[in-house]
């Protein structure tokens, strides 16, 4: 008659009721108290949080800590309260950005706003006319053009970084990492110098060129991580069977790293789809729809937002919010896809272990 013995393997998690009550008290009481105080003396919300709530919360937490663990409980309590407080601050900032884009954006957005272009629309035209259709198209075309060049090159770099035994490999890696911090405006200026020097016309193509140095390092770095996850034994096995290196790559490593490489593509896209400064410097604005990437001005979502935000009118700001929402949705989709693919990848690699 084997009786299941429940092992109390985490005795430190046991808390007696009076301690629980104290913790509850200390974490719940200060908030309404401060709310009440702030309401009664008309104090600014954030300020009252900073000047009254935080010290009060630290004090009560420290008291409970002292009650429960003695002297050392005080430091712990302060650490925990500060950590939670700062982290909440980050979350509040993030949610404020997301929330304002969502609420303001949905006020603007409509089917006509997504489809129509910006011809005959001024900063004060009512929101019933005009939209960002041309800018969505332009953004997609420019980014697609960049992707065509940056993804193969980035993956090739990643192959070099994972397979080469060369001495300068570390140098290449360092340089790629440093390039990923390239300020976007410098990339735009670089292409601008080329435009000035060669007198090629400003078009969507030059914009794509300006995005290229920004996308390349992201793709290269994430692809390198993806290729590293493929067990090196797989490659050795293929080589031992007599496969040449390129077939070992295309038939063994590439299928194994596929989802990781797609993640690299998506993260690279998310990195450049919102870039503004390089496009302002290298592409002429355009209010109409332009299907030709290689000639004439081209509108893109970020430059559209930039253009409308510069003028202070209510309707133009509303347009900027609407375009920002669409841009955010684009980034969100790319990012979400990358997340999902990345997760299945990590599950697989765990299963292998």
């Amino acid at each position, binding site marked *: 008659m084997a009786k299941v013995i429940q092992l109390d393997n985490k005795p430190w998690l046991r808390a007696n009721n009076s301690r629980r009550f104290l913790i509850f008290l200390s974490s719940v009481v200060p908030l309404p108290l401060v709310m009440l105080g702030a309401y009664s003396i008309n104090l600014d919300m954030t300020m009252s949080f900073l000047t009254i709530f935080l010290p009060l919360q630290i004090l009560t937490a420290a008291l409970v800590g002292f009650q429960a663990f003695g002297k050392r409980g005080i430091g712990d309590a302060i650490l925990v309260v500060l950590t939670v407080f700062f982290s909440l601050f980050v979350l509040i900032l993030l949610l404020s950005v997301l929330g304002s884009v969502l609420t303001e954006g949905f006020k603007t957005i409509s089917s006509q706003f997504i489809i129509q272009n910006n011809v005959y629309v001024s900063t004060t035209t009512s929101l019933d006319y005009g939209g960002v259709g041309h800018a969505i198209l332009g953004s997609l075309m420019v980014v697609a053009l960049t992707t065509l060049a940056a993804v193969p*090159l980035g993956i090739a770099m990643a192959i070099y970084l994972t397979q080469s035994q060369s001495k300068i490999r570390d140098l290449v890696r360092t340089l790629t990492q440093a390039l990923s911090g390239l300020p976007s405006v410098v*990339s735009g200026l670089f292409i601008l110098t080329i435009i000035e020097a060669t007198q090629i016309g400003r078009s969507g193509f030059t914009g794509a060129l300006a995005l290229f140095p920004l996308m390349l390092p992201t793709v290269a770095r994430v692809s390198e991580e993806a290729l590293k996850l493929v067990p090196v034994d797989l490659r050795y096995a293929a080589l031992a069977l007599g496969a040449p290196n390129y077939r070992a790559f295309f038939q063994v490593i590439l299928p194994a790293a596929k989802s990781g490489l797609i993640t690299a593509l998506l993260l690279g896209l998310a990195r450049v789809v919102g870039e503004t400064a390089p496009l302002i410097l290298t592409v002429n604005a355009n209010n109409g729809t332009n299907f030709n990437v290689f000639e004439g001005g081209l509108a893109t979502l970020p430059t559209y937002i930039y253009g409308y935000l510069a003028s202070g009118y209510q309707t133009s700001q509303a347009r900027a919010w609407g375009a920002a929402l669409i841009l955010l949705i684009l980034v969100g989709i790319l990012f979400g896809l990358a997340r999902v693919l990345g997760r299945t990848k990590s599950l697989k690699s765990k299963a292998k272990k």
Partner: protein
Amino acid sequence: MSAKDSKTEVRRKLVAGPLSKGDQVFFGTTTVAAYFAFVLVALVLGFLLWQSWPVISDQGINFVLGNNWNADVEPAVFQLGPMLWGSLLIAFFGILIATPMAISMAYLIVFMLPKRLATWATTLVDLLAALPSVVIGLWGLIVFTPVAAGWADILNKNVGWIPFFSVEDPENGFMRSPFIAGWIVAVMIVPIITSVTREIFSQLDRDLINGALALGGSRLSTFRRVIFPTSAGGVVGGILLGLGRAVGETVAIFYVLNLDILHINWANLLEPRGGAVASWILAKFGEAGPFEKQGLMAAGLVLFILTLIVNFIANFIVNKSQPWRKN
């Protein structure tokens, strides 16, 4: 082992044969692609230097030290001092705010939250990193600036005697100051510092931490004596990465900062004037003539060299402090 084995004659030596045609093409392509990183850096440096040389040789060292920018006078003056100092001031202030937030976030994710919540928090922070800077600028201009101006007002009223928070004339309002730009920059670099710090925290030796706790250490003492000393280097690297990003930030700062090229705003955070090189390039580009464009390219060159150096150092430190990533 031993005698018998050593007598066995080697009949055939293992020799790597010459690469096949396909492999030559394969490795050739990847090597060329890798060398493209050098080519790209050289091209950017070369083209910017070539195009901006007339301005740089004309202005000399005053290009980075003087404070004036006027293309209409003869001879034209292009001096970037206030913008350069402004970039650094904003970046340092942003880092000052962002670092505690980022380290707290990383600590919360790695050591305090249950696994499921931690995954969510990580995703949220990564999402913050993916927000386009123009969207942050939009939010910063319309939503955040009024709020932060309120904070600045309170700071100025209560602790205005501290030099950092004093202003010449409070009637000017507190909009478009380095204070607000610093906050915007902080929002953009928190995710960078957080992800580097989180990576380092999560790779710390758990036995070390459990050992410290088992010896009777508290959360605080474990953090101070175990976690902090072992991860400090990497965190500094992450902060430097954030610095690189902060210095190069363009559009978001452009909206929330009043650019003043004539005077250096040394450290009056609340004064509604300041500078940022990248935003200055954007602001002046629209109506710039050919010669002024060359001046802007020179500004871009300075920015590029600055960020390249910062990023090199940052990556060096981060890589050094993450030996488990090497292979």
